[in-house]
């Protein structure tokens, strides 16, 4: 039996005994009066606590347990313990829920929960970014009202979600998304989305690259075979056949330089990072760049080279030489005879800077972003005439990136171009004391 009942009974018994004693000692009605008063007091006490309890039960669940006294203490204390336990548990669940929602929100995958009518129930941050939807204002909106690509509507309607679907987003900065529907509880669906733009572009690049290489090699090969067959089938006089053989040799060299450039590129790509930290003697390197440019120009341009002494780099000499001469040689190739070319090497800001400025044919703005792509040329025939492979800038960009250097191109069609390479401080060696050089 419970303490409250037992103690109430005991109190009633005591009251009855007291009343009987009073009745015997004084008069009957005094006994009755005492008994009734005690009973009313007891009833009032219980009613008060019942009222407290009732108020607490129907109040907010976070209200504190009311104060109590006497036999009700035990009841209220029990209530208090249970209440505290519940509050603690509720807090734990809330924390858990918040944490799992946070995890869902931070996932790199887009997750959208769709209701039975394909309306948006919830989505995480990535999904918001992927579909340009909002977790606040787009709840309840059918997803196909906002993601309107016909392929997507078709995918949803087909109800065959075995394979993911690739769609391009409709935003100005187009993304390629791979999306997949996954059945979820109560005829809900999870719509998973993943940004595959990079992979998609890489795939296109690879395809283009293979097509380009084949095309680049096939052109000289076709010419070569044409001449070979001519020489084989026709009886040519000696000087004619020598001419043909010369032309054939030229095409052969073209193919060779393409393959050499391709090999350089693939070496750069597979080489380990970092490219080493040997000291590069820039004076010697620039002398070599100058020699090459001068022999290519054969005196048709006015060439100036300005080298700030004592500014050296660390890195791979071969890679930097090939990047620098590619830029210098381009300036010679794309500047008509009589133009001027200026090559500068100097300390600049925190690091160092290599500039090649020419007064040549220049490059129209729309070509600038694509210039360092493999085989990209503004004017195919001109590049071929001058013996270009279309790989020079790709090689330069790669070699420079390995040295944390950036390549900036400024150019205006018809006016000339300026290619600037900037090296960070970490690649530049402290200037050597002059006196050493003088001695």
């Amino acid at each position, binding site marked *: 039996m419970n303490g409250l009942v037992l103690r109430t009974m005991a109190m009633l018994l005591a009251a009855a005994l007291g009343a009987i004693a009073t009745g015997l000692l004084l008069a009957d009605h005094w006994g009755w009066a005492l008994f009734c008063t005690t009973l009313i007091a007891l009833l009032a006490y219980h009613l008060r606590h019942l009222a407290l309890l009732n108020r607490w039960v129907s109040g907010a669940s976070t209200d504190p347990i009311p104060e109590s006294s006497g036999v009700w203490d035990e009841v209220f204390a029990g209530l208090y313990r249970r209440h505290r336990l519940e509050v603690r548990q509720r807090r734990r669940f809330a924390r858990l829920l918040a944490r799992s929602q946070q995890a869902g929100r931070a996932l790199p995958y887009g997750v959208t929960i769709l209701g039975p009518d394909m309306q948006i129930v919830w989505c995480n941050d990535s999904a918001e970014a992927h579909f*340009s939807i909002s977790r606040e*204002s*787009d709840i309840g*909106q*059918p997803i*196909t*009202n*906002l993601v*309107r*690509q*016909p392929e*997507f*509507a078709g995918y949803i309607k087909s109800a065959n979600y075995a394979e993911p679907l690739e769609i391009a987003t*409709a*935003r*100005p900065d187009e993304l390629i998304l791979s999306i997949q529907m996954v059945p979820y509880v109560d005829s809900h669906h999870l719509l998973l989305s993943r940004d595959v733009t990079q992979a998609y572009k890489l795939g296109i690049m690879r395809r283009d690259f293979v097509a380009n290489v084949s095309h680049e090699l096939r052109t000289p090969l076709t010419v070569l075979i044409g001449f070979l067959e001519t020489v084989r089938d026709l009886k040519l006089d000696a000087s004619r056949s020598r001419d043909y053989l010369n032309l054939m040799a030229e095409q052969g060299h073209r193919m060779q330089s393409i393959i050499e450039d391709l090999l350089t590129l693939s070496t750069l790509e597979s080489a380990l990072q970092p490219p080493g930290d040997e000291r590069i003697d820039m004076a010697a390197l620039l002398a070599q760049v100058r020699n090459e440019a001068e022999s290519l120009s054969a005196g048709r341009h006015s060439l100036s080279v300005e080298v700030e002494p004592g500014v050296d780099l660390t890195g791979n000499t071969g890679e930097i030489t090939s990047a620098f001469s590619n830029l210098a040689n381009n300036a010679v190739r794309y500047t008509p005879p009589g133009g001027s070319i200026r090559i500068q090497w100097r300390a600049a800001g925190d690091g160092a800077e290599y500039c090649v400025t020419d007064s040549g044919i220049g490059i129209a703005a*729309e070509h600038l972003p694509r210039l360092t792509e493999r085989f990209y040329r503004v004017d195919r025939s001109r590049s071929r005439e001058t013996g270009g492979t279309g790989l020079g800038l790709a090689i330069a960009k790669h070699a420079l990136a390995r040295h944390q250097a950036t390549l900036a191109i400024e150019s205006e069609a018809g006016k000339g171009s300026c290619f600037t390479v900037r090296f960070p401080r970490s690649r530049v060696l402290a200037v050597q004391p002059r006196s050493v050089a003088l001695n």
Partner: protein
Amino acid sequence: MANDHLSKQFDNELEALRSQVLQMGGLVESQVRGAIQAFSNGNLSLADQIVATEVRVNAFEVQIDTDCSHIIVRRQPAATDLRLIMAVTKVVTDLERIGDEAHKVARMARQIHEHGVVDVQHFANIRHTGDAAVNMLRQALDAFARLDVEDAGRIITEDRVIDFEFKSVIRQLITYMMEDPRTISTSLDIIWIAKAIERIGDHSKNICEQVIYIVMGTDIRHTKLEMGADGKMFPKA
């Protein structure tokens, strides 16, 4: 109870109507996007696809129009709902016209690339205007889906940018034609494209006006919009 059930069914019908419009919008959006791409990169198979999509767009138009008249006859909808239905029929007309314009762009793109006299690289600004129109159409449909009056008001003012760009394209083409008369026939084709793009902007603007009509019940066609101090748009008296 029975009434409740009926009105729920009615709501569903209206919701379905809106979704249909937006699906038609999606088709038209992809048409416009494809047409601009066909012009800028000469992808002729894309151009063919756009012509094929036209049939589906037209089917949508007929379907939605029939649905609208059915709803009106059977339900005799009151003010707000009637407004939505009226707006839907107008939006559908605009969408169908946009589809036509996209078709026109695709056809011209094909002609230009088959002629090959003019390098379309020179007309980067057309592509720009085209992208702006695609973007405007997308936002207009978003505003229709969300019934977002504020966005609709903002987009309406964006149409001015397209009109401005249209004029600069025309100026550029005129100098082009004067410099080299051989480019005249292609330049005329390009003018058609620019005009079509400008029309797409206008129709998108109409869609936004319908959004405002649905929500606010005011017809703001042929009125000028003004920007309030709070950055919101409101029609000038």
